[in-house]
């Protein structure tokens, strides 16, 4: 009887260590992900004072960027190669686009073409 209990106890201990080991491993994987700086899936670009902020932004594929116009004149968000194109955004209007593919997307405001910016997806 005692032999069996000891074996059981030992087995339990082993199981416990294994579980702990798994937990530690899982924890370290999660830590690694965070330290890579994963972007949230939705992110925002502000339009104000005739500029896009941030002017350059890097996101992962699948991210949806929402532009919000806080300026007191309308602006547009138009990619140089016309892959995306917003309507004219008046004050407080917004426009969203989901970046599925990796790449560099340069864009500008077609009303004020000196306003340029860039999204990098990788």
């Amino acid at each position, binding site marked *: 009887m005692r032999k069996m209990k000891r074996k059981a106890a030992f087995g339990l201990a082993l199981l416990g260590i294994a579980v702990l080991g798994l937990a530690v491993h899982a924890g370290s994987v999660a830590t690694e992900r965070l330290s890579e700086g994963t972007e949230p899936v939705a992110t925002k670009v502000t339009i*104000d*004072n*005739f*500029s896009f902020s941030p002017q350059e932004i890097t996101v992962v594929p699948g991210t949806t960027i929402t532009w919000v116009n*806080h*300026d*007191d*004149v*309308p602006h*547009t968000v*138009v990619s*140089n190669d016309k892959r995306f194109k917003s*309507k*004219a955004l*008046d*004050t407080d209007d917004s426009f969203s686009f989901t970046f599925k593919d990796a790449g560099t997307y*340069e*864009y*500008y405001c*077609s*009303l*004020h*073409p*000196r306003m*340029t910016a860039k999204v990098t997806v990788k």
Partner: protein
Amino acid sequence: MGDFIEKDANPDGLDRRGFLKCMAWAGTGTLCLIQGGILKSYALSRLDKHVASQMKGELAFVQISDSHIGFDKAANPDVTATLQAAIDKINALPMRPEFVLHTGDISHLSKPHEFDTLDQMLKGVRTNGIFYVPGEHDVLEDDGAQYRDRFAKGSQGDGWYSFDHSGAHFVGLVNVMNLKAGGLGTLGQQQLQWLRADLNPLKSSTPVVVFAHIPLWSVYPQWGWGTDDSEQALSYLKRFGSVTVLNGHIHQTMQKVEGNITFHTAMSTAFPQPAPGTAASPGPMKVPAERLRAILGVTEVQFTRGKHTLATISDSPLPSQPM
């Protein structure tokens, strides 16, 4: 938006080679007239008497610009009231202008009701015709189809055209379409070729007036105040004895003379914008309410034929609001 600039009068003009300062700010209003090739400037307080004595040319017309119907932010919550004041000003001129040129940004957001409102309001102008060119705010959703249908029937391409009046040749150009990233205004090759052909049969003594929304000279490229390919257009105009270029877009008066070409930009009837480089961006500029009408206005142009045919350009502010 937080960056309102409340400006006192007396901004400095630009000390740039070739620039003439002609800014109509409250309290330091300046009227610039070109007579016999010599620039004379007058205080605005003497404007009305002077304009009356100048209205002897063979052809007088008015330029208005940047009415931005639909704009309702702090810089001017009531752009229709200030447009009406501009119309009243035109109707109070001692001589009925032959026509009115609107150099664009008729509407603020290219909305049908904005175009409707302006159309209706300008029916109250005592004149014989109104001619338009579009601003970038007028061609927002449909590549200008709505604009052309309302204001540029019979025009070519994106809405350019020409006409003759009293022996002078008028050309309306469109430089607000297909703007490229990082660029300025654009005329495009199709329009430039049309312009060259259009001017070709004219004698060099024909006075020419060119009107377009964005300035055809480099006022301030950092703010997009210029046209990428205007040099080519200007090269077709160089041979003429009298060329007047009338623009809008920058919501303040500026003037430059280059040989026989006089460039002039108009005030807006809606809201002012800061002088180049004096603010973070060229957005609507808030000024004290009692000063607003003094820096919005209309421009009168008259032609006098003599040894040289000269355009006399005078900018006048809106009458102040009755108390």
